[in-house]
């Protein structure tokens, strides 16, 4: 016979609070077995208290960073003091969905975690972990940073990477295209986009993502001719203007750039983040009425590069059926 | 006849805590030493049947006191009292002739079993 009201009254108020609070709360013992699991954890993980209590946390969540987490909890048992993890250093511990609208470019709940000792006398008998949703804070912070970046872009340069911004790049492109229309000759353009960039932000945090963009821009700048306009075209998209360059020559440049990006992982705070890029190449031709059409061509080429496996260069051609794909498997010179 | 006891520690607080940890009805004569040299002096004067010895003292550490006493035919029951309880420290102290090792801060509950085990208090 169930008596929900009576049951509720039987639970102490604090138990009710722990159950209903908008904060993930769970308790583990020395062997990482779960002793307590509140509703927030249940709702966000899909696993109920009954399913996880009494078992190792890692049995229920095999994707957790085992070594890191074990060490964190162990430090609390051994030293009897608090331990913490901030979203800025580690975006999340549990891969939960956040319940914000799809803004902020954040896929998962950003989390601040606290590890507290639960003591009886002088002995730590269990560790209580709280998971606080920091997604709002992280979004606000990102928005603030983006607003600042936009202000900086009032000039011609991208605030983050220091290379030219999209506005300026397009202006240059427009001029070069007009010149090509008048005088003829060659005009090529490269467009490259970092692969799986969202995943980099997700796994390593936005600070790391920014560092990757900055470093990539620096590396590419170092291997291209200074005279050619190099700009940030989008979030993780870069463009290079190559006036007086044939499409074959442009392809060589594209490969050089692509290999430069992929050669060395980017070091952020001692962590090595691997990076690759997909690249599209296009040259101005009679069918292009204006510079926008040329941009569409190179965009389509980039798209094909992504679709056919990423970390490769694809050249736009006049005949769609003769797409030329340069595989990434070619060994570096 | 009261047992002669030396409490050697450079910290006043530690000496007080140690004194307080002794059984209330233990028949003892206590001499205090504030450094290793004084501890050794008290030992040579026959005042240390039992010695509670701190390890980190100025002007002669607890280790040095133990070494000196070993050379002089160790004739005292030494109980080392220290904050550092890592196994290496304990072993070193044992090999130098100490009979027991108690972690600071010393409580009556921790001390009593040690005294009883070695027949120093019944």
């Amino acid at each position: 016979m169930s008596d929900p009201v009576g049951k509720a009254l039987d639970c102490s108020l604090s138990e009710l609070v722990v159950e209903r609070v908008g904060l993930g709360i769970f308790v583990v013992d020395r062997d990482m077995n779960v002793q307590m699991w509140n509703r927030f954890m249940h709702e966000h993980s899909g696993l109920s208290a009954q399913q996880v209590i009494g078992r190792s946390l890692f049995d229920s969540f095999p994707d957790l960073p085992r070594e890191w987490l074990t060490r964190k909890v162990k430090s609390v048992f051994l030293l009897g003091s608090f331990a913490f993890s901030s979203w800025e250093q580690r975006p999340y511990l549990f891969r939960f969905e956040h319940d914000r609208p799809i803004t902020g470019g954040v896929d998962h709940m950003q989390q601040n975690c606290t590890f507290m000792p639960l003591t009886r006398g002088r002995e730590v008998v269990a560790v209580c972990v709280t998971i606080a949703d920091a997604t709002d804070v992280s979004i606000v912070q990102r928005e603030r940073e983006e607003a600042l970046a936009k202000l900086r872009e009032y000039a011609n340069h991208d605030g983050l990477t220091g290379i030219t911004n999209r506005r300026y790049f397009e202006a240059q492109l427009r001029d070069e295209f007009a010149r090509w229309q008048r005088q003829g000759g060659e005009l090529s353009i490269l467009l490259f986009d970092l692969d799986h960039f969202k995943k980099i932000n997700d796994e390593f945090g936005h600070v790391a993502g920014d560092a990757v963009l900055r470093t990539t821009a620096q590396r590419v700048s170092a291997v291209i001719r200074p005279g050619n306009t190099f700009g940030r075209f989008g979030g993780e998209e870069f463009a290079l203007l190559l006036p007086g360059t044939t499409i074959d020559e442009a392809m060589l440049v594209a490969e050089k750039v692509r290999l430069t990006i992929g050669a060395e992982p980017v070091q952020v705070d001692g962590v090595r983040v691997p990076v690759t890029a997909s690249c599209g190449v296009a040259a101005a031709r009679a069918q292009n009425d204006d510079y926008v059409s040329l941009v569409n061509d190179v965009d389509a080429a980039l798209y094909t590069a992504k679709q056919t496996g990423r970390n490769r260069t694809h050249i736009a051609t006049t005949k769609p059926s003769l797409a030329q794909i340069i595989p990434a498997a070619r060994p570096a010179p | 006849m009261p047992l002669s006891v030396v409490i050697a520690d450079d910290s006043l607080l530690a000496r007080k805590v140690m004194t307080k940890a002794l059984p209330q009805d233990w028949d003892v004569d206590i001499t205090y030493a504030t450094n290793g040299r004084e501890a050794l002096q008290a030992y040579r004067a026959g005042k240390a049947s039992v010695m509670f010895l701190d390890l980190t003292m100025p002007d002669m550490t607890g280790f040095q006191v133990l070494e000196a006493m070993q050379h002089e035919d160790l004739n005292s029951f030494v109980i080392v009292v220290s904050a550092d309880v890592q196994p290496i420290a304990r072993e070193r102290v044992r090999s130098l002739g100490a009979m027991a090792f108690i972690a600071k801060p010393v409580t009556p509950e921790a001390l009593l079993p040690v005294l009883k085990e070695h027949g120093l208090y019944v």
Partner: protein
Amino acid sequence: MSEPFFTETQRDALQEISNLAMGMAATGLSELLDAFIELSVPRVRSVAIGEAAQALREMTGLDGAVTAVRQSFRSGIKGEALVICRSGEIADLAVLARGPGGESPHETMSEIELVFDIANVVAGACVSSILDQLGATPVFSPPGLIGGGMSLDEVFRPDALTWDMALLIEVNFSLEDQNFRVHLVMLMAQESIRIVRDALDTLLGET
């Protein structure tokens, strides 16, 4: 020279308490890192906040670029714990902490995270021990970075830190033959200093 915060006897008691705290921290740390940790006897000194940078410099010879982490604690006695170390040593520490096998990228700690971790562990263990002996159980807030590559004077800027007293505790620890020096500074305001004095007197008067 400013008026001393503690009497000689109180200072002695504080030194002993810090010794014990380091001993307990060493045991815990060595188990945690699965390595032999040697913690030296800490030097303890209390100064007015305005003199903290200079006093720390004298005590430790620390000059040049330092990294400082702050962490608040409260519970009767409240204040802030600063953990300061040479910025250059962090990279060495990182290599050590990561171990020979290296961890998967998912598990690797960034250097900032490592600094926070070490600061949290040192401050947590030592401050908890000290306050526990004084009869208080502290609750900590998450660590925050004051800065990396700063000078000591920048760390103790009066507008950034509004406390009255700095209790300087120099902790040297060696890990696997590598020497690291981490300096713990506990900052407190007048009311807490009073509570600490009372607690010390109680401990001393117990006999």
